[in-house]
């Protein structure tokens, strides 16, 4: 009963958040000085025609109403600048599939590497492996993604010349994936380590050892299962971090994904694209957070509902 009330509350909150995001982005975009056709070498007359065609001369609340109605139908308008006349929806779907392929690889790498390293560090507390892992993870969470990208480029592409800089060449996805995975891997490592250390002191593990269970079973069956619960909560922010990391990684390695489109639509002032991508990404992140929070409550009933 309590759980279902919690879920309903969270879903309502998520809907309000998404609505708030749509509204804020829409009005902010309209506050932006100038219009998207300012840079065009067109006569005043044809500019007026374009503005009329896209309905930019109507009062703002009518435009807002129209945008909301279209959005509910999944229509986000057409791109004004970057790929003139193409639907934002199509561009997002096309390029997001590229980003998603890369993102999922990075996510899997981060989860596997992060949990493994975290376990190694947690189980060898204050010994050499722990120290090494802690040093590397501290450095890793302190590097912005473009620094990671720069290091990878200098080491793997320029000096050793073993990986191509271009995304389309074979193996070209490896460097962007590593760039995306670095921060979440290091964060997960620290999280898992702290969580393992906390669980290892619990009474029920002492009981199991006293009952004569092998250390292997104690650690890998009982301790690990409980220490991975907090990791679930990080999966939402992890998705967000991989998505936003994609802005940098994709532009550096010229991956034709959504992150690169976002950056170039910012420099090109392509309002509908910026709006579409912001709303799409935000919704994705809000939903991921929602799913993780609910999952967390289901997996660990001890968590209170307030």
């Amino acid at each position: 009963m309590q759980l279902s009330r919690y879920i309903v509350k969270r879903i309502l909150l998520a809907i309000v958040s998404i609505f708030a995001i749509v509204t804020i982005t829409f009005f902010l975009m309209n506050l932006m000085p100038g219009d998207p056709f300012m840079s065009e070498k067109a006569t005043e007359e044809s500019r007026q025609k374009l503005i009329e065609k896209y309905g930019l001369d109507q009062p703002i609340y009518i435009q807002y109403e129209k945008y909301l109605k279209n959005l509910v139908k999944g229509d986000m308008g057409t791109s004004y600048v970057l790929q003139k006349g193409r639907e934002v929806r199509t561009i997002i779907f096309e390029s997001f599939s590229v980003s998603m392929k890369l993102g999922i690889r990075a996510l899997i790498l981060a989860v596997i590497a992060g949990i493994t390293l975290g376990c190694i560090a947690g189980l060898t507390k204050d010994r050499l492996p722990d120290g090494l892992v802690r040093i590397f993870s501290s450095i890793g969470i302190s590097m912005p993604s473009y620094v990671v990208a720069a290091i990878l480029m200098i080491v793997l592409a320029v000096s050793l010349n073993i990986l191509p800089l271009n995304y389309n060449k074979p193996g070209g996805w490896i460097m962007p994936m590593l760039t995306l995975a670095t921060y979440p891997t290091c964060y997960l490592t620290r999280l898992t380590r702290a969580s393992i250390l906390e669980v290892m002191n619990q009474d029920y593990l002492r009981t199991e050892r006293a009952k004569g269970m092998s250390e292997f079973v104690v650690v890998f069956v009982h301790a690990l299962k409980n220490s991975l619960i907090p990791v679930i909560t990080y999966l939402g922010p992890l998705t967000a971090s991989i998505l936003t990391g994609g802005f940098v990684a994709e532009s550096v390695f010229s991956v034709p994904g959504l992150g690169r489109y976002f950056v170039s639509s910012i420099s090109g002032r392509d309002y509908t694209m910026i709006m579409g991508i912001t709303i799409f990404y935000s919704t994705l992140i809000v939903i991921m957070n929602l799913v993780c929070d609910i999952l967390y409550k289901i997996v660990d009933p001890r968590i209170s509902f307030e």
Partner: protein
Amino acid sequence: MKISALSMQNKISPDDFTPLGSDFFGEESLNTEEVGYWKASWQRLKANKIAMFALVIIVVLMFFAFIGPMLSPYTYDQQVRGDEGMWPCLKHPFGTDRIGRDLLVRCMIGTRISMLVGIVSAVIVMIVGSIYGSISGLIGGKVDIAMMRLVDIVYSIPEILLIVVIKMIISEPLDTLINTVPAFYGLRRIGSGLIAIFLVYGCLYWVGMARIVRGQILQLKNLEYVTAANALGCSRGRMIREHLLPNCIGQLIATVMLQIPSAIFTEAFLSYIGIGVAAPMASLGSLTSEALNGINSNPYRVVFPAILISLIILSFNLFGDGLRDALDPKMKK
């Protein structure tokens, strides 16, 4: 008094009740001084070698960023003729860029921007967040519920995307504002780009802080000494100033310190994608992004800004961790 042979009672004699005398515990234990909260925290912090080392690095970087440019013979936007695209040498220890600007002084300015953004944003977040959080926590009831709903909503909005959008929009109006209205002339030295970043931070990042402060206030509100102060007729202002704030300031400072690296991260990201500080101004993000374009021919140009930004974030992270452990030993893991 006659005691039964089977009695379990302890046998007591009047000797047990004579005073022990002051020398009973010896010199050592009677000399323990009372150690206050700040002193104890400072001792804990001093014992943490990593945090102290990070503090030293932060101080060195401060000198590098704020004193360094004064000692340099060049300015950040000065184009030295004939020195275009030089490798690191005695004249230009970090080399020069494509149009002959000294990269050492540009890195110093970039470090200054990162530091300023980190520290000022953290202060803004602390002020906005603690005012909002303490009002919400103290008033309670329906006001609290409404205020916390707003926090929930802002919290669930992915801020990095909105920051990009807000930053793009307020930059230009802000620019005209500080260049046309005389009252804002003083802000011109900071530049509209930086002010926009501060505003964005003030708008979005305060929610985490507000939650923490509210939680602390709610916890403290139920403690006996607060009830006692209430019973003695303590006014609300005095309650906040003298009783509530001093008791949660430690955790506030620790949280704020950990906010600094995240602010620096965001600034680096914004200037990397080209919407940070405006053009001739240098930022570590924009320096790296310029350098990455010519990575095949001049890889060394990436090295210095990349190392500097990582070093800044690393030292603030390590110092923040140490400070948190020192100020709030309960949170230590």
